């Protein structure tokens, strides 16, 4: 593998450290950084451009749009009693001028290839531009505002849900790994398949039980209608509206996550060096902290980092079920009407977040795991 990567040297345990001079290490890190950034940037460029091509169906969307504009204008003109009185030539001229205005607005008067590079250029420089159809909740066409307005609710819901899930799973996994074979362990294993159903599935049931039948929880939305003017009341209403969606998110994955972590911890707990530590008579807390948790840290950090960036895009169906005004619904709306700037903006931001995360994780691995070294062109 000739890629720039963080390499794990040695096998099966703690590798002997290679000593190098300070300037040599710096050069190595600098070289690694440059190569890694270039590779990631190229990946982002390719990914974003592919998104542009796919979102536009390679330019076919232009044809659909032209046709839709022509259809709509024809119908508007054809059904307008004043316009129908115009002589045919004048009526067609009128129609063509309306069509030209709309085509120009959507940039259809320029070849798709040129526009695709304009989209790419804007995206890479984070000049997100203006949407083609959708507006922000408050009426702006700036993609930046469209995203920012929905980012808050998405982060609130998914950060609450996913962080709760993450820490519950981590803690639960740790606890169960200590009680391997106990009734709780068996219960969690038995319940793990419940995670086959997504959060929106549980959401529907939760709404049915707590909203429709018991009437104690709202059906959806972010706050009650109309939103309370007092900030404290608003916050309380927000909390109440968070309960069901967060519960759905947690329920949908908690058992499988606990089971995964528990298995993961168990595997590490049965390593030779853990047995050695036990034989040395170290306390179970010390063994857990030094010999189980630490080697598993890169994986946990990776999962945590990816969890954080996946919050970015929200979840289309869960947001829809709970009528939550998040980014997922915005993205779905954008895909439905092929609002390319919004699709591209969401993708490019995700791509940048992913690239930055991957880049930083290489350093984090090196910090938290002594076996990992930063290098270019290493081998695994």
């Amino acid at each position, binding site marked *: 593998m000739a890629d720039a990567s963080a390499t794990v040297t040695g096998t099966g345990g703690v590798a002997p450290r290679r000593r190098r001079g300070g300037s040599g290490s710096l050069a190595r890190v600098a070289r690694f950084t440059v190569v890694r950034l270039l590779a990631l940037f190229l990946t982002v460029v390719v990914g974003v451009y592919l998104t542009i091509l796919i979102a536009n169906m390679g330019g076919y969307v232009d044809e659909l749009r032209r*046709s839709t504009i022509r*259809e709509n204008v024809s119908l508007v003109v054809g059904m307008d009693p004043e316009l129908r009185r115009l002589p045919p030539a004048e009526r067609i001229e009128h129609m063509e001028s309306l069509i030209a205005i709309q085509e120009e*607005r959507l940039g259809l008067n320029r070849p798709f290839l040129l526009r695709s590079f304009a989209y790419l250029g804007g995206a890479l420089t984070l000049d997100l531009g203006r949407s083609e159809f959708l507006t922000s909740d408050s009426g702006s066409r700036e993609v930046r*505002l469209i995203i920012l307005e929905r980012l808050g609710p998405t982060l609130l819901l998914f950060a609450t849900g996913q962080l709760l899930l993450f820490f519950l799973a981590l803690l639960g996994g740790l606890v169960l790994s200590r009680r391997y074979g106990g009734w709780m362990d068996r219960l969690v294993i038995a319940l793990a398949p419940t995670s086959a159903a997504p959060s929106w599935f549980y959401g529907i049931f939760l709404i049915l039980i707590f909203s429709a039948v018991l009437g104690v929880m709202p059906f959806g939305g972010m706050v009650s*209608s109309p939103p309370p003017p007092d900030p404290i009341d608003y916050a309380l209403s927000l909390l109440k509206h968070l309960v069901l969606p967060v519960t759905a998110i947690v329920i949908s994955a908690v058992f499988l996550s606990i089971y995964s972590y528990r298995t993961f911890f168990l595997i590490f707990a049965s390593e030779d060096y853990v047995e050695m530590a036990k034989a040395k008579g170290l306390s179970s807390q010390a063994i857990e902290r030094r010999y189980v948790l630490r080697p598993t840290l890169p994986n946990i950090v990776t999962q945590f980092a990816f969890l954080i960036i996946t919050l970015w895009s929200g979840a289309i169906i869960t947001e829809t079920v709970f009528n939550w005004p998040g980014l997922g619904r915005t993205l779905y709306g954008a895909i439905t009407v092929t609002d390319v700037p919004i699709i591209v903006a969401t993708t490019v931001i995700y791509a940048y977040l992913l690239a930055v995360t991957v880049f930083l994780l290489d350093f984090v691995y090196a910090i938290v795991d002594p076996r990992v070294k930063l290098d270019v062109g290493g081998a695994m």
Partner: protein
Amino acid sequence: MRNVKWFLALALAFGLALGSLAVAQERMGAWVDTIVATEEPDIDRGVLQLDIGVFDVYMDGVSRPDLKRLIDANEGIDYVQAAGLYYELSFNPVGPEFPGGGLNPFAVPRIREAMNWLVDRNYVVQEVQGGLGVARWTAFNSAASDYARYIEVIRAIELEYAYDLAKAEAVISEEMEKLGATKVGGVWNYGGAPVVIKLLIRSDSQERVEIGNYVAVQLEAIGFQTEQNLRTAAEASPIWINGNPADGLFHIYTGGWITTVIPRDLGGNFAFFYTDTGLASPLWQAYVNDPEFYEVAQALDNNEFTTLAQRDEMISRALRLSLEDSVRLWLVDRLSLYPKRAEISVAGDLFAGLPGTPFWALTIRRGDDIGGRIDIAQPSMLTNPWNPINGSNWIFDQSLIRATQDYGVIADPYTGLNRPHRIERADVVVRDDLPVGSTYDWVTLTTAPEIAVPADAWADWDAAEQRWITVGEKYPEGVTALRKSTVYYPADMYGSVAWHDGSPISAADFVLGMILTFDRGNEGSFIYDAAAAPSLRSFLSSFRGVKITSVDPLVIETYSDLYQLDAEQSITAWFPTYAFGPGPWHKLAIGILGESEEAFAFSSAKSDVLEVEQISYIAGPTIATLDRYLAQATASGFVPYAEAMAPYLADGEVAARYANLAAWKARQGHYWVGSGVFYLERAFPTESVVQLNRNPNYPDPADRWASFGVARVAEVEVDGPARVTIGDTATFEVSVSFADEAYPSVDIDQVKYLVFDGTGSLATSGDATLVAEGLYEFDLDASVTGALAVGSNRLEVAVSSKVVALPAFDSLEFVTVR
């Protein structure tokens, strides 16, 4: 003592009743204090929340049979019904052979005509739509005044073209053989290959998918092979309407159309739907009609008749010829139900339902309550910026906007005829060769051999010099118009009607509206918007002049070549409510000022060109910009088009208006100022909630539109002998009622009877005579019964009302014996 108690109790009850009555009488504006609109995209959940009382009204139409059953089974929920959407089959008329090869049977008019017998419309209504539809055979909507007017012809057509598979197969087989096709193993073959009918089916509508499937099954039953091509609206568009039909990519398209206002004149439908003058689309350009049909369709489209009797004859002919042409096969008028809590009374439009009419806000009430709050749910809201000039036209934004604005005239939700809202009365003069009639007494209709437009009327606008161009300047030789409307506004309008920020309405509000009609589409304008130019061009094609003949009270004359058959629809009722919302001049002025400096723009198209925000008066980034321009306008005393506006501004009006607007913004946090029955308390964009509060200064009593509480669709029952001796006179009775009470005869337009003999042919028809309120009678005399053969006959009665466009029917079978 006991009597005293009784007396006291009675006195108390009487006092309370009087008190309630007094409160009811004093109630001005809306019945309720607050409307809270919340977004609920899922109609199932919307209905569920109606059931448990979270919502009171769901503003979107339900067309699913399962939901209809759910609503019917629930005593707590009922609905308002509308029928503005209709489905058809569009045939590709190219051929009979496509240039690229392949047979197109639908190039043959007789095969298209025979498709009427092949398709069972009642099956579509019952099985596809679960009863939520009305079978339809002609270009006329079943809930339109023209349908009722020509019921005699239409019912005969409906019977003639009723489902008859054997007849369809016979006619189609005959024509297929003429084309050179042969049946091999029960399958039509042409040129050695099976004839495959390509159905282009809209996949984004489950009903249209099922309709497509059904038609395919019927075609296969008579020996065709079919290919079903499911496409979304965007994907189908390049094929059916913009593609070349000669490419042969489809034979049949499952079409759907929507009408959002009750049509008063459907005469133009023949030219629009059947001939090449309908649309510039390649499909329409491929239509080749029988010359007689083409001629009558064009004549109807151009109103080339001078009497209604002439029109009747032309339409009767066009209706029959359209079935023989059948490039379009009408299937059903779909019914939509707008669910609501049973205790809520609210008026909905017969075509546009609840969100499409301002009457929902003017009439909504919970039982007999006064005040309180009503919660409505809408599928989506706040999708675009709100501004009166070119803001959101999304139906569920407009439903709320309508509650905040007034009108010169409002379309009656049940007949489509205009009713006066903020105008008092109108005079209409039409050229004496035009067949215009009037229904209501608020319009005075007269005719004249010629209508000359006064030289001092305003005919156009000089945007560069910001001044009116008079008729004398534009038409030095003088100009005439086909109609003139003179609108009289109430004498107390300036004192009684106020904007929500407290500013009294003034003539300047009207004049700015007139100026903006011309200015924005004019290249010389300082706020020129290319997107407004086409509309201006079409407006000018019929507009001849406008003249304010009196400022106080306000009287405005408008001259135009545009007229309709109803005088009520031939009125230009100027009022400062624009296409997308209410527009007091000072609210618009700050937008105009900002747009002139390219800080933002009213239209989406211009905002894209300038790469600035589109103005929103309710929320978002343009609110801060509007703040800035309000301050600037206040400081400078800015009046747009100052010279033209000056004569219509009162002393101190400019400063007072801006002060009122600033105070309103400080109080409400937005600039949405209207004069409607509700004002916008606040919009919560991210939460998708809008709160409307009752306008306490609204000048109309709450019960002004009480008669629109429900659509008074007549209930008809025909009764008479089941056995009639040939040659004898038989008398039949028709009772017409509504809610178990006799239908007032003054509201009845006609009670028509039709007798169809055993062969289904129309034997006779006529009008029943009023014998008592709600009771009509007619005789089939000896000459009529004498002409009937022995056997079964069908008597149909159609009742059309003046207050509801939807006709009512009943029928009776009777036997003729010797």
